[in-house]
């Protein structure tokens, strides 16, 4: 029976920092399976290439193999994993979704980002705290003078293994059967993973939980790198499960845990240490996580179709603020400044309808003329 400290430490070792080269700050990521697929938020993995910092201080360049900006999920793969002996099966099926996604998401600038959507739709009760602003904070690039990624880089680089989390655990939990060292315990609890968390060998990965069974009141553990504190843990309970106003019909897990910028992309786990969500945003002080079942769906089926636009709700409909030149909307000659008619929910439904072509009605300029375009979607949600 694993104790709380062991559950937390195992999760911590499956949680990575996701750093963008040349940018300040960073987010978190989850080592999802034994193939070394790392899951994070799309708003964390903004570029094609990122850098991964493991719990033990090792750094690896990684490529973004797929992004679903509508669900705010992205999958990463450590580039030279095979050479490092990290993933023996790096050439196996896990890469399929990546290849498919490479097609569907040619650029990284596209897409509907949650921050923009949330800002106008949830004005917030306590005036000063608006969801949009919090979300803006959760995007690592915004955290002005604080430079979490770099600070961490310094602290981890200098020690070269002298302050490893495993040892810290041993120190901080003297009552926890001191003779058993964390590494050994980990080897026991993950028999399928050929044990061990020693550098140079295979990565420890999380156990996904069934997010459909999550109930309000369950204990949860969140791990991430808030404000640059690597592997920081906070606990709480599931607050509620359901849709967020103005964010479409998709369901989110809201948790009463303390999160901060840098937690994005990190795991939200239940009392068994199974990951039930991916921490994504802070809305009215509550942590908001993508359910793990949605993440599993994303990994198995790839990203859902998207228009490649950044939208902002306006009185008439949805204003296109930015457009990805390589996206489906641009291919249908939509431009920034056009206003799509209809609600965000309607648009989400159309995109998820599994048809390759959707019809959009929009306004251009002040002529109040409605035009229609057929948007061909390169990616299709595959039939189940």
């Amino acid at each position, binding site marked *: 029976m*694993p*104790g709380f400290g062991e559950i937390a430490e195992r999760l911590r070792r499956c949680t990575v920092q996701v750093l963008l080269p040349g940018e300040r700050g960073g987010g978190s990521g989850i080592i999802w399976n034994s193939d070394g697929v790392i899951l994070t938020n799309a708003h964390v993995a903004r570029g094609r290439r990122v850098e991964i910092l493991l719990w033990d201080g090792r750094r690896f360049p990684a490529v973004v193999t797929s992004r679903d900006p509508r669900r705010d999920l992205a999958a990463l793969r450590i580039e030279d994993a095979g050479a490092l002996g990290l993933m023996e099966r790096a050439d196996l099926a896990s890469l399929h979704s990546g290849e498919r996604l490479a097609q569907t998401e040619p650029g990284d600038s596209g897409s509907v980002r949650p921050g923009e959507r949330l800002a106008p739709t949830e004005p917030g009760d306590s005036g000063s705290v608006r969801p949009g602003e919090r979300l803006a904070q959760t995007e690592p690039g915004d955290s002005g003078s604080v430079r979490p990624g770099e600070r961490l880089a310094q602290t981890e680089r200098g020690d070269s293994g002298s302050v490893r989390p495993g040892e810290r655990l041993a120190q901080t939990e003297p009552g926890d059967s001191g003779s058993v060292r964390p590494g050994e315990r980990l080897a026991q609890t993950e028999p399928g993973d050929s044990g061990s968390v020693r550098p140079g060998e295979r990565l420890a990965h999380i156990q996904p939980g069934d997010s459909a069974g999550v109930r*309000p009141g369950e204990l949860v553990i969140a791990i991430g790198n808030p404000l640059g504190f690597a592997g920081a843990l906070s606990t709480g*309970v599931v607050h509620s*499960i359901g849709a967020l106003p103005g964010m479409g019909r998709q369901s989110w897990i809201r948790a009463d845990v303390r999160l901060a910028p840098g937690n994005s992309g990190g795991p939200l786990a*239940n*009392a*068994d240490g199974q990951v039930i969500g991916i921490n994504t945003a802070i809305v009215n002080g509550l942590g908001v996580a993508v359910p793990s079942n949605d993440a599993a769906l994303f990994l198995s089926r790839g990203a859902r179709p998207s228009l490649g636009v950044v939208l902002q709700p306006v009185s008439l409909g949805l204003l296109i603020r930015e457009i990805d030149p390589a996206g489906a909307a641009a291919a249908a000659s939509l431009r920034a400044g056009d206003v799509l008619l209809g609600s965000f929910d309607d648009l989400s439904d159309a995109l998820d309808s599994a048809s390759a072509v959707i019809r959009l009605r929009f306004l251009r300029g002040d002529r109040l003329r409605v035009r229609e375009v057929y948007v061909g979607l390169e990616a299709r949600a595959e039939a189940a």
Partner: protein
Amino acid sequence: MANELAALSNELAQAVKQAGSTVVAVHARPRFSSSGVFWRPGVIVTAEHTIRREEEITVTLPDGTNAPATLAGSDPGTDVAVLKVESSAQAPIARAAADPIPGNLILAIGRSEDSGVNATMGIVSAVSGSWRTWRGGRLDRYIRLDLTLYPNSSGGVVVNTEGGAIGIATSTLSRIAGVAIPGFTIDRVVDEILARGRVSRGYLGVGLQPVELPEHKKGLIVLSLEPEGPAAKAGVLIGDILVTLGATNVTDTDDIQAVLEGHAVGQKVEAVFLRGGDSRSLNIVIGERPRRS
């Protein structure tokens, strides 16, 4: 992989499920709904400060349907409002078997129309005896909560890990923390509201300030007087020093409230004043505190 943590987690989720089946969302203010709980069959209690309109109040019942509710009455002093609904089939919440003590794990359970039941967890951070709120009411116990109350959860029920109700949560009675309005106080207010439609409070119509008297005695000097108020009608003057009310020595304004709580509106109470060095006794007919507008 059963562990103690998972067992606790399961217990908490069970408590939320059980208690949550009596918790409703209350739609009586703009933007954010609040929460309420079936306290008796057909009777919902919620936090008074979340009721911003007296008509067209609806509640989202535990089964997800919306139903109209009528405001039976409210008591701003204790921040309790009482709603009535036609749904008598709904079972009320079970009460906690034991009094809360500091350190007890507790859950605040609310409901919103969009995402159903919601919960936050924390501990009881302090419990003390009878406590007068800044709004003038009296709680039979002061139960301070160390948990986060989100806008939707004011008026929701505070339960222990067995799902038994300790009281209802309010964020407005204390600046530093959420407070649970104790079950006993809710019972008292609900009884009075259902019987009379409101909670009436005794009223003298005087503004008082504690003063030191010779020989280490204390009294309350009348600094202001409501014209045509109960005290003015009885002949009290500004500058009089009140020393006893209803045979109780009074040295603090809380003493006045305590005496008034023991006397019904309309009853006579004897007041002894010092005026110009002489002691004189007056009978004041207790009036009813005017409602806040």
